[in-house]
């Protein structure tokens, strides 16, 4: 059974399974389940009171971007990805991913409710800030082709649109923009501020890493099953979509850090975005564009190595539910 195509009755059978990787990702995603109320934000509120205006702006601005962004991803998944996949195991994964996006939205909502924010103002930011509008328009442009232009998914052009949409959302929005947002959010913890918010970001990041895995695997599978898409022209187009995403992010980063704060400024974040984008390009088999080094070396402490939590002090974010459960695999 091809992974892309129109729905047919045999799609509703989970067995025999064609895309085991999607089912495995689904199972891991279920084990990663967490809830916002597991994080207590009291100490973070004390940090908040000590932060400078520029630091607060950075946090608020990041929140203003993430909150609607999670819902945009959900819309893309529901309208631009889910309907065109035949594989029920992919549908299982997407169902869990959509719950996760909802959970992230609610998690940010929880932060917004807890911190002394002017919520109305924050909700307006993404509608009023051109650099944020540009990011949303960029993603919606590709989704609209899927929903309004309605190409036939079984034609090469329809498949190309599927890939374009997925690259814009999964590779650029989730896989690049979100990652730079996480780096900014975690940088506060690096300075011993907003540690509990940092724990929440750990969890969001763990989820997003899985989303990215799924997205890359999906793109690879579609390319493999549809070798007619493997043209230099289309490859260049995909690369340019990613490069465009990085360019849009430059303006956003200037709004995020009009003055810079200790440890971070717009140029620093731009370089990080370029570094991450190069990794995404490589993962898709495309040549690197920027060849820059990772400016945030401290991220090795934040995300790269195993973490030992002093659990009287911090929420342990490394737990998984559904333990002791023994998985049956009989294909």
């Amino acid at each position: 059974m091809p992974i892309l195509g129109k729905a047919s009755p045999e799609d509703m059978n989970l067995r025999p399974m064609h895309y085991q990787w999607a089912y495995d990702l689904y199972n891991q995603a279920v084990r990663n389940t967490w809830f916002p109320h597991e994080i207590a934000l009291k100490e973070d509120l004390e940090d908040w009171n000590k932060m400078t205006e520029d630091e607060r702006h950075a946090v608020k601005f990041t929140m203003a971007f993430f909150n609607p962004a999670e819902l945009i991803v959900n819309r893309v998944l529901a309208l631009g990805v889910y309907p065109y996949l035949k594989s029920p195991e992919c549908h299982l994964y997407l169902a869990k991913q959509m719950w996760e996006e909802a959970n992230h939205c609610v998690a940010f909502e929880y932060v917004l409710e807890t911190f002394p924010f002017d919520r109305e103002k924050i909700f307006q930011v993404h509608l009023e800030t051109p650099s944020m509008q540009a990011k949303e328009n960029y993603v919606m442009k590709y989704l609209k082709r899927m929903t309004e232009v309605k190409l036939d998914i079984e034609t090469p052009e329809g498949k190309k649109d599927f890939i374009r949409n997925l690259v814009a959302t999964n590779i650029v929005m989730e896989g690049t923009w979100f990652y730079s947002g996480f780096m900014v959010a975690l940088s506060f913890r690096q300075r011993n501020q907003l540690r509990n918010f940092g724990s929440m970001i750990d969890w969001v990041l763990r989820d997003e890493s899985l989303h990215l895995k799924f997205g890359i695997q999906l793109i690879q599978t579609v390319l493999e099953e549809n070798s007619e898409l493997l043209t230099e022209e289309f490859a260049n187009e995909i690369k340019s979509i990613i490069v465009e995403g990085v360019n849009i992010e430059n303006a956003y980063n200037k709004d995020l850090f009009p003055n810079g704060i200790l440890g971070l400024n717009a140029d620093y974040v731009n370089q990080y975005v370029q570094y991450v984008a190069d990794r995404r390009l490589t993962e898709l088999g495309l040549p690197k564009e920027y060849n820059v080094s990772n400016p945030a070396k401290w991220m090795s402490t934040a995300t790269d190595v195993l973490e030992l939590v002093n659990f009287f002090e911090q929420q342990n974010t490394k737990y998984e539910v559904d333990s002791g459960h023994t998985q049956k695999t009989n294909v």
Partner: protein
Amino acid sequence: MELKVTKRDGTKELFNADRINRSIERAAFGMMDPISKVTQVATDTKVTLYDGITEEELDEATISAAVQNIKEDIDYDKIATRLLLKTVYKSVLGDYDQSPEILKKVHKEHFPSYIKQGVAGKILDERMEKNFDLEKLSSVLDISRDEIFIYSGLSGLLHRYSVKDKNQQAFETPQYLFMRVAMGNAYNEKDPTEWAIKFYEKMSQHEYIAGGSTNINAGTPNPALSNCFLLEIHDDMGHISKSVSDVMLLSKASGGLGASITKLRATGSPLSSNNTTSSGPTPFAKIIDTAIRAIQRGGKKKGALCFYMENWHLDFPDFIEWKHNAGDDYLRMRTADTAAYLSDEFMKRVEAKTDWYMFDPKETPDLNELYGKAFSARYAQYVQMAEEGKLKMWKKVPATEQYRAILVALQTTSHPWLVFKDPINLRALNNNTGTIHMSNLCTEICLPQDRKNVAVCNLASINIAGHLKKKQIDWQKLEETTRTAIRQLDNLIDINVLPIPEAVKSDSENRAIGLGVMGFSDAIEQLGIPYDSPHSYDFTDKIFEFISYMAIDESANLAVERGSYKNFAGSEWSKGKVPVDTMEKLENERGMIIDVDKKSKQNWLDWGALRVKVKSGMRNATLMAVAPNANIGLVAGTTPGIDPRFAQIFSRNKISGKYLDINHNLVTELKNLNLWGMVKDKIIELQGDISSIEEIPPHIREIYKTSFSVSPYAFVEVAARAQKWVDQALSRNMYLDDRDIDKTMDIYFTAWKKGLKSTYYLHMKPRHGAEQSTVSVNKSAKLGKTGFASVFKNAESATINVEPVSVVENIVIEPVREEVIEKEQEQIMDVKPLVIPTETVSHQIFAKVQTQLPNVEPISFTKTSSEKHFQEKIIDGKVYKVHMPTDPAENNLCDGCQ
């Protein structure tokens, strides 16, 4: 871009790169290739600056720049440490001249005024000035000992323990801090100055470190120096309410708490007052859970408490759900921890696969007080009464089912911890003062409590790694350290202030102390001994036997000098018993041999003479307890407690910040072998697990294992060897990479059989983490996919010429797993009590410990078992094996995804 710096007085000046460079240069003094290091830190600092940055932030930026390079070279740790010290010196001593000689002088000269200002500002106790010769104390202060610190240790010490002035600015240097703690424990000595110097000499060289509360409060006007409290909650509304208040007051005094709720009647149990029924222990526990959240312990730590419940309580099945992340929030404990208090009777029923009965404590009130054979006999009577319909409320489940449920909860939520009631009570030397109803927050304290007594324990830990000399233990120094630490702990009790009379009573009448150890793994690494080897087990015996002997001897000396503790008469001490003698009693009551080597490894120690000495008096009811030491271990820059290295590189998420921990011993070895530069990135990418890096010689890989690759049976064996000599208990952290529940059941069963009193936190290796940021792993290459690469014939990406990696073979489908599990379970449950005559135990044990894991494994995973621990990861086109959980789903997820 032109940068301006905002000075402390608000004025701005142009950023002066040269000044920053010079200060980094001073911090790099004495290093190899200092220029490149200084340049690296200076460059990294510059990219993070912004216009208008303050002076303090500039200091912070320089330190951060050094810290983020530690993974490249541990010299950057030294640079960061020195930069941080500089900020402290500047804050405490003012703008001193940069010459080290002048600094040394100013540091000494300022000390008396630090004490005097502290006393005048009510930051320090009056006795700090009155009882001491401050000039003499100044003369021994040695600022060069600040060089011993590593960055995370110094940062933790300053953040957690140092006394701040009224404006929350640094008020003391690290050496002042150690001297303050030394003085704050020496007020009542005949010559306080002389003893303060002795204590200072030990602590300032990290030979032992006092417990957290002592470091925070010693020498201050509020010397709340105790670390642990254990209280019982009784089954009446008045006492429950009082307990909530006690918990809050004790938390405020900066201690961790154990609280037993076994006595609270079960859900549905009748209330006599209004003819309704009880809501059970959960809602009352929730009140306490909420209360401790509100408390900032000593202003620095959140309240922390562990609930204990015996597993015959009717509500025990609810109790093990308390830490689940889903469910009604009113039935879940978000802050408190939980521990299951298990009897020998239960473990035997698990082994015999018989039923386990649960009762309402209202109907079976004496069970909580009984242990050993007496418990079993009474329990059997209640079982009979239940079956005859003479009890109103009870239920039964297969014992194995409850045991499994406990361990499933432990794997999923890391709670409840497993603590064993019978070895705790049967081996207690202080058993003349009542039943021990629980352990404490960190499962190392074993002290009795009742309505009139809230147990109190006072802690310090010896740094074993600080006692190495030329690849061996300096025993003479270790003896001196042990004796000094025991005296300091005994002194503490008469200075200590406690917030409730029940705690004062218990503390003064029992004088309970707990001397522990840290740096165990740090020491054996330097001695070249792998954690999971017979040599490490023998080393454990040697160390603990020695410290136990010296601690007991010193307490007996103090009894001669100062008198015995009030409850000494009737204790096992007064019968001439020492901890190791109590093994026999446990074996008799349990009716089985404790499966551990019992021979002395220090034949020259005269235990016979010591028994005679002990009989005539002891100063303290208890002497040893090995705390987890997660914080003071960090301060001393060594491994905590008896734990193995978590990984060769990992991050610590602490209240004082997130730190990268890198094993300096390993880095030094690799530098000596000229390998460090070649393998450092791989070590991060493999998350601190070097087992598959072939460039590193095998014997080194054997010594430097991660906690997830050490056999879990080794954790049990090390604790079992130590437990023989320790009169209280040990915080035994467990680490598992395998989620197979039957194996977990066997590991904990072995812990019980080997006589452990308790186990502590269970760390499960995460199956899936976030994408790594600083090392770049190509997800597609890992899958053997090339994406668009084929269309760019000459592009660099086309070179991802991954051999269609063994990926395909890895889609090994588990051979009908369900059946297999069934069998394995039977095997485990069929284990017969190992009755080995004591004389033959000694050396066979080694072999046994080693083979245990393989014994279990073949039952379930025939040939693939050893490979299942590994996942393959591709770095630079080479395939590495990464130690991973053996969950079959994981194998499919990571390798066989197509």
